[in-house]
């Protein structure tokens, strides 16, 4: 290929030089504004032979982000020109500047129609390209018969473009799939690889859209197998060769189509079994292109009804990929394993160690894949060890993955917790590490969990109290801690606890902690609500007058708080102190255990696999999520307020 064929568009190059010589953004803007003004003026003039240069210049500034809409009509004019150079840039401009929503695009319909039957195949090709990029539904309906004609009777160059154009048409107007089916079928007999490639893409699109069409195309499986065999076995074919593999792109396309045709169908799967085995064993995996084909083969084997020997081979290939030095290959392997973790769970479990190691890879993409896969591999038998790894991951994982990791850990813990204490510990661990990234439902869910674990109330409140002393920035954690302190304050003050070392906690200590939360600028209004209520609830276990006064003074401060919710609470609590002291004990007594199936309670979000427990079955689809504050407490008090 010679440089001379690349004749420079001189005015374009001059402009580019001028733009590049600008030393600041401001200077560049100035140059471009001047150029655009000149271009605009040129557009208004009649034909001067340099029209294509002007449009090219406009497209250049458009790429840099400057407005170019005033060039739309010029595109329309250029497309209608008889000169190839002008048509070429006109169509390019149309594809860059127009879309079907703009009026100007309607004006090019006629040009496209005419150019589709132009005597020059390169003009036809421009029209096909433009139609495939931005053809509206009406244009597609209008021109579909013409495309069908080109699919049947033209040269390979046009046929392959017509095939992709047909794909676009089918995407825009689904019914037209019927029209193209016969032509698509006969294209499989072509020898030209570009045409074959286009044909396979078209057939794939038709099959994915329509089940009946898919069933009709199942008959082509033997033909596809033949074509593949030709690519895999035949001698060295230099024009299609990429690093020793014969047209890997076409092979990948055919393998994908075979996958679609063989799914859930014994007959089709049988017909392709031998071929797949052949490709799987003979493809050279030392080069990237070989791996692309192997990877596609593996996916096909695993998604059709293949015989078990072949399946084992496929999973082993994935296992080898997982240990490959090339990170791309490891990444791809994990994607594939993710796709089959539902159906071939045990096979994937065998590679759990390697997958967990990938959590520590420095590449964020690999980490992301490893996280998804690790979560999918947690089971009752490995939950303790897996959770250790996942919690370790959570403490150092990239910020964009934390929410996903946290919610995945919660789901896994919910399904497979070996004990209630482990479950509570795990959730607390997540809240301490990534409390800012958990969803809102976590707080009521955790509270419900805690109330249900009655033997652990003492342990839990001690742990939460300690966590509160260390860090009050994680809102979810602080909210749960306050709730528990309010609820189980008596256990906290008692000092002894079976499961943890005893620690002396005085009433003042507890009130100090709650006051710190109330006064901290880090606490959200919701959190303050929790702390206020907890302070109030401590009134019952605390016997000394000094502390009762302290509680009352804390509460009454909030009687004039700007936040309406807090103000209302404070006022109501004050009322309880003054007028309704006889009811206080009953009102503020310990909450009943929150039932798992109570209405209004929704489970935590689920990522991926459905949770088989009863909760989700009982929760209606449209039920709103719980509000941030625990609804039960607020209801109790406002109900009292009516009295």
């Amino acid at each position, binding site marked *: 290929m010679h440089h001379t064929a690349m004749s420079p568009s001189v005015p374009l190059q001059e402009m580019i030089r001028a733009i590049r010589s600008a030393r600041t953004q401001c200077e560049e803007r100035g140059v471009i504004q001047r150029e655009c003004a000149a271009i605009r003026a040129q557009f208004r003039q009649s034909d001067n032979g340099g029209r294509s240069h002007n449009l090219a210049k406009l*497209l250049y500034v458009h790429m840099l982000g400057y407005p170019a809409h005033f060039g739309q009509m010029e595109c329309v004019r250029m497309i209608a020109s008889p000169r190839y150079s002008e048509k070429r840039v006109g169509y390019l401009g149309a594809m860059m500047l127009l879309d079907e929503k703009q009026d100007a695009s309607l004006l090019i319909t006629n040009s496209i129609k005419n150019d589709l039957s132009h005597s020059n195949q390169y003009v036809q090709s421009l029209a096909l390209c433009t139609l495939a990029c931005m053809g509206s539904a009406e244009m597609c309906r209008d021109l579909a018969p013409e495309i069908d004609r080109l699919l049947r009777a033209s040269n390979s160059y046009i046929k392959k473009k017509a095939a*992709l154009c047909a794909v*676009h048409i089918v995407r825009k107007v689904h019914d037209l799939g019927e029209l193209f089916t016969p032509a698509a079928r006969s294209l499989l007999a072509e020898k030209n690889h570009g045409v074959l490639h286009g044909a396979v893409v078209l057939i794939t699109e038709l099959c994915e859209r329509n089940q009946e069409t898919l069933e009709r195309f199942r008959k082509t499986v033997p033909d596809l197998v033949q074509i593949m065999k030709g690519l895999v076995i035949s001698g060295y074919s230099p024009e299609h060769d990429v690093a020793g593999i014969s047209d890997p792109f076409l092979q990948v396309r055919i393998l*994908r189509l075979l996958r679609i045709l063989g799914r859930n169908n014994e007959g089709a799967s049988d017909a392709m079994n031998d071929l797949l085995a052949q490709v799987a064993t003979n493809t050279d995996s030392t080069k990237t292109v070989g791996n692309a084909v192997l990877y596609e083969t593996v996916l096909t084997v695993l998604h059709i009804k293949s015989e078990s020997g072949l399946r084992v081979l496929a999973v082993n290939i994935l296992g080898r990929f997982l240990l490959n030095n090339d990170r791309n290959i490891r990444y*791809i392997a994990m994607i594939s394993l993710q796709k089959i973790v539902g159906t071939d769970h045990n096979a994937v479990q065998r590679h759990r160690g390697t997958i967990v190691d990938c959590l520590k890879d420095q590449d964020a993409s690999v980490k992301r894949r490893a996280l998804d896969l690790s979560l999918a591999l947690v089971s009752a038998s490995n939950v303790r060890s897996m959770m250790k790894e996942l919690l370790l991951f959570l403490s150092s994982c990239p910020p964009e993955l934390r929410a996903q990791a946290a919610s995945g850990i919660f789901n896994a813990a919910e399904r497979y917790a070996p004990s209630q204490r482990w479950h509570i510990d795990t959730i607390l661990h997540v809240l301490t590490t990534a409390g800012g990234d958990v969803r809102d439902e976590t707080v009521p869910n955790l509270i419900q969990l805690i109330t249900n674990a009655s033997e652990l109330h003492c342990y839990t409140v001690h742990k939460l109290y300690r966590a509160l002393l260390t860090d009050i920035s994680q809102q979810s954690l602080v909210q749960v801690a306050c709730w528990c302190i309010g609820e189980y304050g008596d256990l906290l003050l008692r000092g002894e606890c079976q499961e943890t070392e005893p620690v002396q906690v005085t009433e003042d200590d507890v009130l100090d902690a709650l006051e710190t939360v109330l006064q901290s600028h880090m606490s959200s209004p919701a959190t303050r609500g929790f702390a206020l209520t907890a302070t109030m609830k401590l009134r019952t276990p605390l016997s000394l007058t000094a502390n009762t006064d302290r509680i009352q003074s804390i509460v009454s401060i909030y009687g004039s708080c700007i936040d309406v919710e807090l103000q209302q609470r404070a006022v109501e609590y004050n009322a309880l102190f003054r007028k309704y002291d006889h009811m206080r004990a009953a009102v503020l007594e310990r909450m009943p255990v929150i039932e798992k199936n109570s209405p209004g309670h929704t489970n935590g979000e689920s990522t991926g696999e459905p949770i088989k427990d009863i909760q989700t079955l009982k929760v209606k689809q449209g039920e709103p999520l719980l509000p941030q504050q625990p609804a039960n407490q607020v209801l109790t008090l406002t109900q009292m307020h009516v009295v």
Partner: protein
Amino acid sequence: MIKAILIFNNHGKPRLIRFYQYFAEDMQQQIIRETFHLVSKRDDNVCNFLEGGSLIGGSDYKLIYRHYATLYFVFCVDSSESELGILDLIQVFVETLDKCFENVCELDLIFHMDKVHYILQEVVMGGMVLETNMNEIVAQVEVQNRMEKSEVSLFLDR
């Protein structure tokens, strides 16, 4: 489907932008900036696949990229494309450019942006892979350039 092909340099300056899905102009520039931001953070020895951008197409899309000297070649694709296949396609495209421009470098892309588009049009059409045979692509590009040249020579340049 390939949703977009972006080529920009190490400083994020766009050298070729092709969207196969309609986006308003300011959105296009935002996408370019976001993509550059994501890609330039990556080390040289990590994998060539990136997830996590949000502006194009939501969750079902990936960035597949290669870094050649001063240029990033980024293909934004959805799950219907083979990741390794696209990676190979980028290599084919760059090698084709190399054949057309003789030791192609960033300057060639800067000063011949329109020509690069025409070459790309022979490789990808409507967001779908059209032709992967380098010789075929180069031959077709050559013919079309000759056609254009024969017309241009009939007119005086500005």
